[in-house]
């Protein structure tokens, strides 16, 4: 018997017994559905972390020179923390020395941040991230100006009190009116709004559009840091290789400035998006490790159910098997018929699971801050797993069917 004939026969059988088939493939259905949904969400988070988190928040091919890492992932012990706090801060001179010393072509910016309440007229916005930065900050963070303009190097040098607002902050403070040229107060000091940044959206439900950027030498600096100190020097290179090279140059410059001996550790931090992505990949690895267990349980249960259904089918169709054998079906024909039927049953369940899993992932993405992105490989894995479970579950019933004695099977009364 040809394979396609066997599949057609199996589909006929499933259609003839819709309810029974439906129940029998529920286990596989659930297993595959979870597989697809979980993989989609994890995959979505992956993409989010690499594109948005690493790209937007930290910048591509960018590292930062800081007193200690900004992204504390995992546990930082109290003693480590105390050591970090005792480190010298990054001074203007440090930053300038590094900027001058780098031979790799890079873009640099000073950044210092704090949180403050902003006001414009009667409107107030609390707990807004205030950053004092140099002009290339926007380039490093890949922030596009939606209206108005960014500040210039001259404005930075002169310490002109101008501000560029995040999209949501702008609409909150100015109620949909054009904010350009108007005044916002940060720490009760007036700034002129010269630009609004394009909408960035959310990251895990937190808005990325509530921030204000001012010039590094603007009056706000004294609220942000002690004199002549910055939070970070951000350095963006064209490629990953350039970035690595710039990092080692920066490390050498800083070590010599701080007179560190070869055995001393760094008294500063060079932070890249890699740390964040490493941390995330640890989390997603844990999820991916737990997932097979969950899926396996459903699939094993599903397989047992299918095996039972197939054993019932073999018993019910003993006569049919006898007839087929009397007409020339060999053992392997009968074996294949029932294996294909079992596999088809499970594959139908898996296909339904794939469809529902995709829908479920979409639903999760719609009603929660978790993003979702369906991974094509997970669909393939889901369907193959389903078919595999069907084949494995079908082996025993199909073997029993194939071994039936044709005479006894023909005489069998149902």
């Amino acid at each position: 018997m040809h394979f396609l004939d066997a599949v057609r026969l199996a589909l006929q059988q499933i259609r003839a017994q819709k309810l029974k088939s439906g129940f029998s493939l529920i286990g596989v259905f659930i297993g595959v559905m979870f597989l697809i949904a979980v993989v989609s969400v994890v995959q979505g988070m992956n993409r989010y972390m690499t594109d948005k988190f690493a790209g937007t928040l930290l910048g591509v091919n960018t590292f930062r020179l800081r007193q200690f890492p900004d992204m504390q992932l995992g546990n930082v012990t109290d003693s480590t923390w105390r050591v970090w706090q005792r480190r010298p801060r990054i001074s203007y001179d440090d930053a300038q020395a590094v900027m001058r010393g780098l031979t790799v072509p890079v873009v640099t910016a000073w950044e210092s941040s704090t949180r403050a309440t902003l006001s414009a007229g009667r409107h107030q916005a609390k707990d807004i991230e205030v950053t004092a930065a140099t002009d290339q900050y926007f380039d490093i963070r890949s922030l596009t100006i939606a209206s108005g303009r960014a500040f210039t190097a001259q404005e930075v040098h002169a310490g002109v009190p101008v501000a560029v607002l995040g999209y949501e902050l702008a609409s909150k403070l100015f109620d949909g009116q054009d904010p350009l040229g108007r005044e916002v107060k940060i720490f009760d000091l007036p700034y002129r709004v010269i630009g609004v940044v394009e909408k960035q959206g959310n990251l895990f439900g937190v808005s990325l559009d509530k921030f204000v950027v001012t010039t590094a030498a603007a009056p706000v600096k004294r609220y942000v840091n002690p004199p002549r100190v910055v939070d970070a020097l951000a350095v963006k290179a064209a490629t990953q290789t350039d970035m690595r090279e710039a990092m080692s140059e920066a490390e050498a410059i800083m070590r010599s400035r701080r007179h560190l001996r070869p055995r001393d550790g760094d008294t500063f931090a060079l932070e890249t998006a890699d740390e964040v992505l490493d941390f995330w990949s640890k989390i997603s690895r844990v999820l991916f490790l737990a997932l097979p267990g969950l899926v396996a349980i459903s699939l094993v249960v599903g397989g047992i159910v299918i095996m039972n259904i197939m054993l019932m089918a073999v018993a019910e169709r003993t006569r049919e098997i006898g007839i087929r054998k009397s007409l020339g079906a060999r053992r392997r024909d009968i074996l294949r018929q029932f294996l294909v039927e079992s596999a088809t049953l499970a594959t139908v369940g898996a296909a339904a699971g794939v469809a529902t899993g995709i829908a479920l992932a979409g639903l999760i993405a719609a009603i929660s801050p978790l993003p979702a992105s369906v991974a094509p490989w997970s669909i393939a894995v889901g369907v193959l797993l389903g078919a595999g479970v069907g084949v494995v579950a079908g082996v025993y019933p199909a073997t029993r069917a194939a071994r039936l004695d044709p005479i006894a099977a023909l005489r069998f009364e149902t």
Partner: protein
Amino acid sequence: MSQPQEFRTGDTPLPDIVILTHKLARDYDMGSEVVHALRGVSFQIRRNEYVAVMGPSGSGKSTLMNVIGCLDTPSAGEYWLNGQKVSDLSDDELAHIRNKEIGFVFQTFNLLPRASALHNVELPLIYAGASAKVRRDRAAEALTSVGLGDRMDHKPNELSGGQRQRVAIARALVNKPSILLADEPTGNLDSATSSEIMDVFATLHGQGQTVVMVTHEADIAAHAKRVVTLRDGLIATDQARAA
């Protein structure tokens, strides 16, 4: 009709002998005792013979039928079918022989209930590995030849007993077997329908088909040209009837 020459172990049957059994025996081990269903049956059937096998229940005619139909293998003795010694073939080889050489017609029809008449007739061709088109054409042809050309899409439960048996006959013949092997073909039919089926057999025999029919009804056996009677696992009588 004279019997051909005596067959001895090591011989090969003559070319026109379709069925040859030589000292065929079949024992069933029932645990506490061994049942000797066949105790040494030797007979030969030529091409285009029409033979009825008779005997009371327990005489071994069903066992003989199973062995001739290659559903069962003998415990001892030889069985040659169409020039091939089949008594020591494996299961799968027997399946192949059943597919190519034997057309079964059963008392209970043994059609697949959910399949159409056409699909039922296609079954032997599926196991012969025929393509879908060949299957369809030949099954339709076989059904037409038994007068069911207009019932091809009917399921067995939409057909009368006589029609079902004709579907079974079409199925038996679709692979052009060496023998048509019928087991009580009229056992479930009324007498009018029975004689219809006997007419079909007569026609097939007239076209050159070798027919072997197991029955316990003397008036059905009367349609055959030769009657073999079994008793206690041995041939009791073997007589040709006047044409």
